[in-house]
């Protein structure tokens, strides 16, 4: 019964996901515009090309900024809110659900909403600043200068609650007596956090950070919708760049081999990023 039970899942997964992934490595060695069946073998040409492509480096940097900056914001806020929700607060479940909610929304919808929010001529953010007399702070939020910080804020809003719920589940597993003992000894909230909460949730935190890193590098729909029709070149991320080369951000380029090589590089970045994160967060396991 092993074979018939495994076969359908193995077959569909292999055909749709694994085979294209391997085929991608082959395609990345060709130059191909997709209009004809003629593909020109150029070896590592696409990879050499990307090393000297300034847009590639900009995209890589922006992806890293969103992953690291967004991650810092997400986990900082998630710990902060989890500490608050630890207390005897009324409506705890409501707040938790409300913070979690944005992750459930379609990314395209969330992106549209943020595009409206950041709209300088009729969006609420600029209107608010002008109304309270801070008009001098009003900016082109999605212009070349601010696009990555603006996107990072939208990303933090969208993903924070998800990681909050993960961390809260980890904190709930810490025996209550630890916190009580700390309180009895007169430890400050801050010390309790550093000496109990953080070390005791470390494993959960590491898994959560790995999950974040993987998903951060893949964020696409939120960015494409927020920056519609297309971000300025200086605001490209890896996912946007790949999309633009392959299918075109509404102005097709059709460099299919190049786009696929970029996809391979993205995969390498994901794997390398996770390996580095694992390495720097390694420590003895605490049993309790």
């Amino acid at each position, binding site marked *: 019964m092993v074979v018939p039970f495994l076969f359908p899942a193995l077959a569909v997964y292999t055909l749709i996901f694994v085979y294209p992934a391997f085929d991608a490595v082959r395609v990345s060695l060709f130059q191909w515009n997709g209009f004809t069946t003629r593909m020109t073998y150029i070896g590592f040409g696409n990879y050499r090309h990307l090393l000297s492509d300034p847009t590639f480096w900009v995209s890589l940097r922006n992806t890293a900024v969103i992953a690291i900056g967004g991650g810092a914001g997400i986990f900082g806020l998630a710990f902060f809110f989890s500490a608050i929700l630890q207390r005897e607060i009324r409506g705890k479940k409501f*707040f938790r659900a409300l913070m979690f909610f944005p992750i459930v929304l379609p990314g395209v919808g969330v992106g*549209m*909403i943020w595009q409206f929010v950041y709209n300088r001529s009729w969006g609420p953010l600029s209107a*608010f600043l002008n109304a309270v007399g801070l008009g001098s702070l009003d900016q082109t939020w999605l212009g070349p200068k601010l696009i990555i910080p603006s996107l990072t804020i939208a990303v933090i809003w969208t993903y924070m609650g998800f990681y909050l719920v993960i961390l809260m589940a980890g904190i709930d597993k810490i025996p209550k007596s630890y916190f009580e003992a700390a309180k009895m000894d007169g430890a400050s909230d801050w010390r309790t956090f550093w000496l109990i909460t953080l070390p005791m949730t470390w494993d959960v935190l590491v898994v959560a950070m790995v999950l974040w890193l993987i998903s951060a590098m893949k964020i696409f729909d939120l960015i*494409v919708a927020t920056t519609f029709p297309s971000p300025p070149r200086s605001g490209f991320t890896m996912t946007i760049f790949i999309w633009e080369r392959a299918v075109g951000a509404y102005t097709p380029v059709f460099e299919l081999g190049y786009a696929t090589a970029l996809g391979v590089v993205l995969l390498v970045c994901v794997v390398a990023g996770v390996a580095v994160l694992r390495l720097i967060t390694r420590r003895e396991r605490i049993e309790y």
Partner: protein
Amino acid sequence: MDTATQVVTPARQHPLEQDRPRLTPGRLIGNLPYYVVLGLWAALTIFILLWLFSGSLKSNVEIFGSPWALPKNPSADGAKNYSAAWTTAHMSIYFVNSVLVTSVSVVITVAISAPAAYVLSRIPFRGSTLINYYFIAGMGLPFQLILVPLYVLLVQIGLIDTRAGLTLTYVGVSIPFTIILLTGFFRSLPSELEEAGAVDGCSELGIFWRIMMPIATPGLFTAAIFNFVMIWQEFLLAQLLLSSDGNKTLPVGLMGLRQTMQYNSNWAAMFAAVMIIVVPSFIVFVALSNRIMAGLTLGAGK
């Protein structure tokens, strides 16, 4: 090991928290700064959603003129905007496509992942670990990697620009996580179950179908919800594979609509269209928030 308990009772509370906190005035004031911070974040989220809703009930003139004002003529303008989005902009077609593609994908994914996960977790055989890793590897693969080969593949098998092709794709990419989730779930069930079944003369198939499946229902349900949320909002693959208007799903349709907006700038209808994509998720979340939170965060609990 915790997985199953989490799936079965997602809203499990710490025993100590079960009695409601007594709210004395002193405690209320002591917690005030925290309520302020929580309130600010909650207000931001609620404001964004309400602002979207109010925008969908305004006329274009109002949207451009006064972003903070309430809609002047909500029922008339609302009806106009929603019918423009729903009928003229074909959101109704996209909606039906989304429901169709999502539900069929979810059912097939769970139906073929459950037996595989069962075999991988409960029946020892050579290569079991290897196959397990083979599925886990799929978790790290970005969709961006497979765009071109997947497109070519679907052209070759004649399913490009069809809802069936998109459904097949969703099943393929959803299998890894579903199997990981269900494997963890099956592993946590006690082994006495199969033994009892075997003693009573149940066949292996009978054990799976009549003993394990009924117990696994909460796990299957969680997997189904997880996949529903993910597939309902998927944009990249749908945009890649679908080109005819009649086949598009909601996210693709919405982006297409946004593109037309460039020319006719009917922003009010755009607000209504965003509402149409947001509201179903909102309803599902309100109805199933505990299950969704348990399901989406399950992978990290291990």
